[in-house]
């Protein structure tokens, strides 16, 4: 039977200690390497080892593999791999009718039922058979038999369950088993490596010999653009952007961070990669990380720091100082569900107001957002270019979705990376003398000409001396705002994702809603709807063409994962009629949900 298809959505669910993220990562790498496009969605609890077997401890990893370009991890799953009953009941609504459930039956025993809060007489697998295909195997038993001769405890052996499943799934998706083994060998050494390989083989051979062809789901491959690829998460992309910044700027970058989910991975990546010209520094707190970054910028490095919402709040005072000092600084906010500790591992776009307005005094600064993993590297470079060439702090927004979602990434050619030119401190220029774009020179300690003292007190124009003069303060407030307003010179043309430049319905999004939004709008557009998708990279100052562009449509709808933040900004700045679709559940929008919502709206507003 030829089960080859164009798309396949797979959902893996089980305990957070089951190694699900690792299993998923292995599968998507193999898919990407075989030429498929992939998008992923990780969903895991904030606890490192959440209560085993319970619904609250479920970790999930969803991915879509496709023979064509895709932008989201898919909605309903074609295949559901359940490590235990808790994982199944938490997410079972996500499996399509007629889909395939692969269940590790050892996770469906009486104890597992009790942990998941089910009665002992319930049989979720039997119930499932009514709507979906079920393939149940005792993966634990299979794994322990495969590892019989290996010197590991029973508990350690059970941890190789994900490798047994990896073997099965590798066969089911027609992936290259040899390449997978080589990859495992590279990652795992010693007895654990031996166990992982044995479990992988056991799973693969079982699938191959047990006539599982009815369950086989192969995805066709597409021809990717020529180049060298790797799979990349958003945090890894940001780290590459920081590495590239040091190279393009030709100066050292001090990356100062304090551990916080989901921003810590950037620090881990930089510490692991050790890129030339980047000094990773784990500071004692959020305030220290931004002030150390500012100190570095004063001394002629570029300071970069990252955090998530609560940490950005702590950095607020430092952002004010950065505005006052007019030093370059990049502040990355990997947003999560808030306020307070909120949902540390879940996604939300609710820090937009904080980024735009969350400071004391008149403290404007450019704000941009990364829309997908594959653009993280270039966005960091652009943020750094704007920070250095306009001598201003820049906020770059990411979120938990981008941080953890992976996609194939074509390595850029280094010659095509943008240049970053520091505004020179020519000897005849005073520290706060501005050029035509309102930018002051970057004169750094060690330079004899232009020695100066600066601080948080209002500075006198040109000299930077302390000034309490009324007129000077007004002028400096205006000059700082004017300088930031001029950063639109760094923007590319306003680019449309899907649709025409005028029409009935304009859909505006920003950040990580990109994938689902694009998928939904493209479908409607193909169906003949007059609908256009615009995705804003620059949230302050807005792209100068946005205002006219909006006027070209009968109605505009803003889609974002908050209670309506960008929509308020756009309403107040354009006075155009605008609706809003929002969600703050910690989960990303599904493309199907957006399709339905936008379909209704386009009918209403037609």
């Amino acid at each position, binding site marked *: 039977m030829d089960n080859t298809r164009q798309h396949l959505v797979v959902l893996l669910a089980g305990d957070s200690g089951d190694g699900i993220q690792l299993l998923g990562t292995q599968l998507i790498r193999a898919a990407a390497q075989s030429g498929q496009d992939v998008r992923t969605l990780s969903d895991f609890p904030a606890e490192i080892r959440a209560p085993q077997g319970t619904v609250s401890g479920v970790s999930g990893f969803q991915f879509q593999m496709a023979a064509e370009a895709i932008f989201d991890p898919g909605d309903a799953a074609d295949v559901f791999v359940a490590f235990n009953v808790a994982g199944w009941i938490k997410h079972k609504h996500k499996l399509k009718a007629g889909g395939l459930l692969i269940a590790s039956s050892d996770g469906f025993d009486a104890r597992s039922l009790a942990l998941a809060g089910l009665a002992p007489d319930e049989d979720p697998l039997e119930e499932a058979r009514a709507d979906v295909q079920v393939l149940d195997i005792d993966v634990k038993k299979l794994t322990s038999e495969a590892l019989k001769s290996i010197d590991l405890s029973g508990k350690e052996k059970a941890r190789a369950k994900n490798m047994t499943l990896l073997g099965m799934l590798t066969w089911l998706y027609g992936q290259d088993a040899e390449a997978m083994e080589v990859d495992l060998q590279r990652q795992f050494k010693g007895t654990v490596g031996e166990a992982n390989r044995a479990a992988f083989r056991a799973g693969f051979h079982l699938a191959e010999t047990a006539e599982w062809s009815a369950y086989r789901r192969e995805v066709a491959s597409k021809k990717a653009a020529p180049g060298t690829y790797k799979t990349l998460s958003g945090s890894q992309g940001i780290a590459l952007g920081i590495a590239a910044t040091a190279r393009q700027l030709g100066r050292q970058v001090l990356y100062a961070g304090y551990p916080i989910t989901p921003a810590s991975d950037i620090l881990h990546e930089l510490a692991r990669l050790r890129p030339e010209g980047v*000094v990773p520094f784990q500071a*004692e707190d959020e305030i220290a990380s931004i*002030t*150390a970054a500012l*100190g570095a910028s*004063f001394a002629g490095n570029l300071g970069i720091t990252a955090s998530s919402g609560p940490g950005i709040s702590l950095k607020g005072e430092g952002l004010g100082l950065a505005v006052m000092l007019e030093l370059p600084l990049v502040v990355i906010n990997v947003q999560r569900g808030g306020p307070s500790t909120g949902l540390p591992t879940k996604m939300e776009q609710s820090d937009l107001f904080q980024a735009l307005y969350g400071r004391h005094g008149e403290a404007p600064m450019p704000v941009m957002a990364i829309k997908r993993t594959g653009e993280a590297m270039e966005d960091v470079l652009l943020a750094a270019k704007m920070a250095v060439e306009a001598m201003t702090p820049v906020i770059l927004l990411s979120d938990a979705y981008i941080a953890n979602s992976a996609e194939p990434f074509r390595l850029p050619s280094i010659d095509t990376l943008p240049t970053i030119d520091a505004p020179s401190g020519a000897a005849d220029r005073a520290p706060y003398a501005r050029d035509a774009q309102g930018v002051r020179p970057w004169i750094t300690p060690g330079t004899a000409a232009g020695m100066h*003292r600066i601080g948080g007190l209002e500075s006198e124009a040109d000299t930077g001396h302390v000034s309490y003069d009324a007129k000077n303060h007004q002028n400096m407030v205006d000059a700082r705002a004017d300088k930031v307003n001029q950063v639109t010179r760094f923007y590319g043309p306003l680019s449309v994702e899907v649709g025409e430049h005028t029409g009935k319905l304009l859909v505006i999004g920003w950040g990580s809603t990109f994938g689902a939004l694009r998928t939904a709008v493209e479908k409607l557009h193909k169906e003949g709807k007059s609908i256009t998708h615009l995705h804003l990279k620059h949230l302050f100052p807005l792209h100068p063409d946005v205002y006219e562009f909006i006027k070209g449509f009968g109605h505009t709808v803003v889609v974002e994962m908050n209670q309506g933040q960008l929509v308020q900004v756009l309403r107040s700045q354009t006075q155009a009629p605008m609706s809003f679709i929002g969600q703050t559940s910690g989960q990303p929008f599904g493309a199907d949900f957006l399709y339905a919502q936008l379909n209704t709206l386009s009918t209403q507003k037609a």
Partner: protein
Amino acid sequence: MNGKDFLSDQEVRWCPGCGDYSVLKQFTEVLASLEADPANTVVVSGIGCSSRLPYYVNTYGIHSLHGRAPSVATGIKLANPSLDVWIITGDGDALSIGGNHLLHVLRRNVQVPILLFNNEIYGLTKGQYSPTSRAGALSKSTPLGSIDYPLNPQTLALGAGATFVARSMDRNPTHLRQILMLAKSHEGSALVEIYQNCNVFNDGVFEAFTDKKMQSDHAIFLTHGEPLVFGSHRDKGLVLSGSQVQVVSLTDRSASECWIHDERDPMKAYALARMTGDLRPFGVFYREDRSVFEKQVHRALSETRSLEEVLAMGRTWKVD
């Protein structure tokens, strides 16, 4: 260059009679005698009366955020370890709002002398009690006397793992210059607590230790390898009885029988730091040799990867 050459063209705006004037003067004198390169010198401060000092010194300077001078300075040293960086701070700045940063700059051992102006009061905000104010201190925010137990900068620094801990005073220019020179020559963070008189809000709080006439009975000046002797006729000394500090008369015993100051001994340094009564030590309490943070960081980064190498790391594949 002499001391005056290190003063900027800005008008100094401390209250007339403030102890800060003396510290500024001794600081610039020290820069002159060190033959410091002004362009290679950065003075970093937080917020408070003392933190205005960078504006008055003709070097690079940054007047940063309240309490954050240590982290700003750490960033500067990580960016460019060859710069001569100084931190200027006060008791509120370093020990209250910036306490955390002080702990960490000290334990990391970033190469930077820290001049902590202690006047036991918030001056710039016009007279509230500070973390070093004595119990019972009367201030605008404690009209009935302070209930807070005061923080001891010396034991705090020792507890944080500081490698150089010292105390001096505004009214003894020679001693202050000498301690600042030692702090500058130290490899690592050097905490110098400076008793500084706020003549407006807390006048005379250190009088017993700084007044020339009273000082001999209340201040004991430390010299490494020398006995701890004080008094107007150098007729009193300290001995250690177990871990207890005792004052003894030298009329019937020789100075050599006294406690010999050993700035390398952390236990003895702690005993000195605990002397918070009406006899207090001045000088270097403690010093040790330990690698400097920013040098270690840069040494650890000596094997870095080019961007090409970084991009190629991990599993990559080619599509032709």
